[in-house]
């Protein structure tokens, strides 16, 4: 796929995310919208996977450690043809397989059940260690949130991955600067975030997470250094693509209703038409 085609896919994902959370009346649109380019790049360009065989042993793995961005994950699984539109729109409904935070035992191609922040990355490390032990060449991609980076367990994992020289592991930080209660730098500052991960022994790249060209070229080039885990800081805007959600912590969670729902749909639909 060309960069332009991938950009179109990301715009399609944004529309699906908004449709999904509006249909559910609940959900976390902001972090799904901010991470759309990265997820699109992973699912449509970077990762090797076999849609006919979710359990193919040599597939690349994606762990959404920030499990609340499930609407984005499910939308991408739908775009890959792995769940129907009808299934996608059962998001968070009674009896659905799609909980607000993903359950790997219910949804094919979800590699890890996540939602409790600070847990998914460790599982990704375990998958990467297993790959090394078995001399397999699959890669593991983990997306963490910036609010999530306040969990102590993240830093236990930050110590662990370099110790095992996991150059088959890439952790992507969706750096949208916003958590539930406000801006991360007001709530519990993370900067200088790149320095911290470098100091822990990771090879770090700091990129514009909405530039598809930059996202794709960065993720295609992992590992950045042999024998070291890769860390990508994807600088993003929370709620990207919906004007009233952008950079507004009130829209970490919650679904737009009424006029705002209509406006959100108009904006993501217009963006898709423009591409």
């Amino acid at each position: 796929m060309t960069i332009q085609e991938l950009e179109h896919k990301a715009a399609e994902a944004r529309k699906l995310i908004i449709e999904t959370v509006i249909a559910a009346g609940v959900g976390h649109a902001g972090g799904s919208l901010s991470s759309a380019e990265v997820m699109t790049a992973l699912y449509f360009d970077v990762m090797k996977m076999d849609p006919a065989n979710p359990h193919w042993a040599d597939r690349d793995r994606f762990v959404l450690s920030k499990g609340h961005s499930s609407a984005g994950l499910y939308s991408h699984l739908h775009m890959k043809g792995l769940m129907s539109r009808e299934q996608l729109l059962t998001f968070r409904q009674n009896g659905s397989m799609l909980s607000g935070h993903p359950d790997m035992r219910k949804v094919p191609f979800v590699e890890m059940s996540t939602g409790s922040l600070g847990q998914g990355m460790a599982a990704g490390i375990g998958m990467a260690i297993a790959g090394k032990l078995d001399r397999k060449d699959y890669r593991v991609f983990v997306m963490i949130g910036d609010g999530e980076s306040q969990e102590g367990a993240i830093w236990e994992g930050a110590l662990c991955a370099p110790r095992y020289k996991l150059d088959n592991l890439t952790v992507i930080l969706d750096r949208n600067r916003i958590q539930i209660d406000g801006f991360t730098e007001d709530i519990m500052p993370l900067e200088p975030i790149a320095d911290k991960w470098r100091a822990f022994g990771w090879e770090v790249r700091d990129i514009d997470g909405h530039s598809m060209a930059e996202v794709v070229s960065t993720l295609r080039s992992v590992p950045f250094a042999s024998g070291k885990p890769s860390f990508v800081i994807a600088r993003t805007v929370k709620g990207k693509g919906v004007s009233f959600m952008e950079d507004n912590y009130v829209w970490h969670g919650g679904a737009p209703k009424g006029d705002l729902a209509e406006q959100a749909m108009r904006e993501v639909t217009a963006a898709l038409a423009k591409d």
Partner: protein
Amino acid sequence: MARRSLRHAFAETLVELAAEYPNLVVLEADLQDSTQSIQFSKVYPDRYLQMGVSEQNMMGVAAGLALSGKIPVTHTFACFASMRACEHVRTSIAYTRANVKIFVSHAGVSAGSAGTSHHATEDLAIMRAIANMSIVAPGDATEMKQAARAAIAHIGPVYIRCGAGDAEDVYTDRDVFRFGEATRLREGTDATIISTGYLMYEAVCAADLLAKEGTRVRVLQMATVKPLDREAVLAAASETGRIVTVEEHNIIGGLGSAVSEVVAQAGIGRVKIMGINDHFCAVGTGAYLLAQEGLTPEGIAAEVRTLLHVPAATRG
């Protein structure tokens, strides 16, 4: 009779099983001598993953390994596995049904004078309340070796619990551990003592003391605390009427609670729960602390005698 270390028994069994299970790997959180995982590290250094003092990360990494086809066996103290890393065990391991074996040593008050920070008198309650989790707490080296094999063969998460010290041999050649089944160590119909973990020995000794007085007490060792052998409990309740449970754990939430849940819902029998009486313990050796709670052959026998003088449960 000899006293043997269950930590060593488990470690030796893991080394034996490693050849049989090429996907078995061991994780350790900086306690390799205390847990005896050092034995595995010497024979299989390439399958030994030192995780440092990071129990939460260790549980998550174990989940990822299991979801990639490994059988990871984590090692740390009971207090850290069940409490420090509790939510990781619950969400990353139990919820995903990851095939992780959580081996813990120094359970109960067996860390002794190290103090309450290193005791685990809550872990059975915590693990029991987690869906998909199985729990085994063997009582002597023979039972541990058999339970270790069964736990590795079992598909799904298992919490394998033992203490710090040595345990008296109780199992004879006739006794066999079966996953999910009580082991009947003494026959009797006057009352039943149900034990788990190392107190299996005290339970048997109490029954032998009572036998000298002409009281015939059944002894069931319930090494598998979850899934509980309900049939054995119901048979004990209906055939002997009175049950004393014995565990190195708070009287809330552990074996006694599990047995009581079965007995109360069936509406038959009386239960006396013996354990740590819902407080943090004094300073002392494990044996001293257990004696403070009456968890001795004499103390257990006394509770059986008391229970025998209480009328059997009746309707209304």
